[in-house]
């Protein structure tokens, strides 16, 4: 018996798998069938989303990368440039992936990950609160949407309307994408925020706080966003599909008939919004690539996608899966529509940092420390500083 135990261990040592948030928490449920079929154990580690970026970079530097890991599409450029992600061995792996999700994981004509789930930003709203001002669903253009906010604020002056916090960049960036702003120039080496489009988006963003529709608060001050939404402190929550799991788990606090989902408003109707696609990636440092790709194939299979959808509300990135009856729910329709119109973000390795820094300046603007033109000029200066190294490498022709 000892001999067989040893031989099965030497045949395959356990694969290591990292994912963030709910995807990491629930991934072990998908591994049992994989281990039963192949005999390969998988050690799953769930990373908190706020610390995942530095943890993965440090792991790569220390040659401690897991065999398979989940990367949000915004980080693909960065991790492929440093040589942490292996390109796909076969295009068949992504043959029926939704084009928008596939495009986000593509770089210089190569695919670096198998899109697993796609999370477009939408708005969750309180049906009962909107009904008090005579609305069934939130309006889908900026002006009427803000009017809805003012009406709600008049009804409930002690509460806010929109749950968007001052260190969450997604809302501001969605507004920027919808306004049609082109955020970088000169082959993505300089900031381009001093444009009428960006100014329009910033003005709209600032007005949400100035009019008391959104709180001047950071995520550290709102300990339980869900409870606040359930108590009616906010009527609208621009968020992601992952909220579906919270809504299911805590349905005692907020019954299903009291909330709904809609696309986010744009200047003149819905437009592109921020989208996070998670991609299954294989490390270049893995010493068992075949097993790693087998795991990717298993996790990206229609069966696993559907299982994960029912477990945590993840939206599959595989087009063929969307014909399944379990995805034919009215609540998922806005997601499906929005998924066809994601914002295209610059594929530069500094993008994550650019978003954080833009949001820091926007926070100062919201707190009245900067005017909008000052904020936009500060952002351009800051981005030029962040992209200095990239600029010199592009000018020297060392990177595309």
């Amino acid at each position, binding site marked *: 018996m000892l001999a067989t135990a040893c031989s099965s261990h030497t045949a395959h040592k356990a694969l290591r798998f990292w994912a963030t948030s709910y995807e990491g928490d629930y991934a072990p449920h998908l591994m049992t069938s994989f281990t039963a079929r192949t005999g390969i154990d998988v050690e799953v580690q769930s990373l908190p989303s706020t610390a995942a*970026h*530095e943890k993965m*970079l*440090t792991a*790569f*530097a220390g040659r401690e990368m897991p065999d398979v890991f989940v990367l949000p599409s915004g980080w693909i450029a*960065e991790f492929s*440039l*440093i*040589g*942490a992600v292996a390109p796909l061995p076969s295009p068949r792996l992504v043959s029926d992936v939704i084009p928008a999700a596939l495009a986000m994981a593509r770089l210089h004509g190569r695919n670096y990950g198998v899109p697993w789930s796609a999370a477009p930003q939408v708005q969750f709203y309180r049906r009962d609160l909107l009904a008090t001002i005579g609305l069934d669903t939130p309006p889908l253009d900026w002006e009427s949407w803000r009017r809805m906010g003012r009406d709600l604020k008049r009804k409930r002056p002690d509460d806010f309307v929109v749950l968007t916090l*001052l*260190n969450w960049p997604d809302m501001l960036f969605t507004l920027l994408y919808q306004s049609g702003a082109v955020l970088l120039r000169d082959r993505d080496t300089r900031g381009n925020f001093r444009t009428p489009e960006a100014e329009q988006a910033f003005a709209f963003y600032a007005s949400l706080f100035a009019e008391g529709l959104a709180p*001047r*608060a*950071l*995520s*550290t*001050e709102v*300990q339980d966003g869900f409870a606040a939404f359930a108590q009616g402190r906010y009527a609208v929550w621009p968020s992601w599909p992952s909220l579906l799991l919270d809504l299911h788990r805590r349905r005692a606090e907020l019954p299903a008939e009291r909330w709904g989902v809609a696309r986010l408003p744009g200047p003149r109707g819905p437009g592109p919004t921020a989208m996070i696609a998670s991609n299954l990636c294989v490390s270049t440092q893995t010493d068992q690539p075949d097993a790693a790709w087998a795991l990717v194939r298993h996790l990206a299979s229609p069966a696993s996608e559907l299982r994960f959808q029912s477990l945590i509300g993840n939206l599959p990135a595989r087009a063929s899966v969307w014909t399944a009856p379990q995805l034919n729910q009215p609540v998922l329709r806005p997601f499906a529509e929005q998924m066809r119109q994601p914002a295209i973000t610059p594929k530069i*390795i500094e993008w994550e*940092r650019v978003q954080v820094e833009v949001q*820091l300046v926007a*926070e*100062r603007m919201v*707190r009245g*420390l900067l005017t909008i033109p000052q904020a936009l000029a500060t952002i351009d200066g800051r981005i030029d*500083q962040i992209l200095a*190294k*990239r600029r010199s*490498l592009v000018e020297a022709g*060392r*990177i595309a």
Partner: protein
Amino acid sequence: MTRQERTAWWLTGPVLAIVAGVFLLPVLLALALSVTDYSIYAFASRANVQFVGLGNFIGLLRTPLFWRALANTALFAVLGVPMAIGLSLAAALLLHDKTVRWKPLWRVALFAPYVTSVVATAVVWRFLLNTRYGLINYALTAVGLPTVDWLGNPHASIPAILLFVTWKIFGYNMIVFTAALAAVPQDLMEAARLDGASRWGRFRHVTLPAIGPTLLLASVMSVAGFLQIFAEPYVMTLGGPAQSTVTVLYFMFDEGFKWWNLGQASAVALILFVLILAVTNVQTWLGRRNQWL
């Protein structure tokens, strides 16, 4: 080399080797990094690393956030050191009094925060400081004072964190002071009392000179500690609101480990090192002048 010297080298050698390997060498490497533009591009190709001389330092001086981080750190130290030392000395004096009963219990209770985990207590304090439901604002309203948006107002965030830090660390110095107070010569104290010295006079001229060296040590350690403050803002405010709690070390962490600009981050580390060295030198000079060393 005598036999004795050889034995000495044998005994200290391993330790010296370890110190050189895990302390000296990394420090030298960090020094070397600070004059390069080592960034995430260095992973792609070593050829992307260039010698930039003092470029990182000049770049830092032109970064407004670095100056803000320096100012925030200075504020932490200027307010925090007197607050922490004053409170621990006051607590030690109270505990030293003959009329106080249950002394061991008090000592343990006041020392306990020091040995708890920063993250766990920071989370508890975030609840205490909550604007709407927090116990501290509840107490303020109870005595008729206006509530404070502790962690959301850029002017209140540093005092809020200082409240927490002081509560957390004062127990350590309190124990050190308790030990020092026990060594204050009692006959001198008696003599001063017989000569009619007031309570303040006895403290100023008998107690203080006796605990002077301890006071100096506590202030050197506290200054170095406050200049390196990081975990508290990282857990409680993430550097916000409006970057009012970004400290030098927090800035270094972001540059180095979040964005992987190790060249820039090493330059920050070097500046912080020079700063701490300078302040400590001033303190030792003051100590020498008062004959505490």
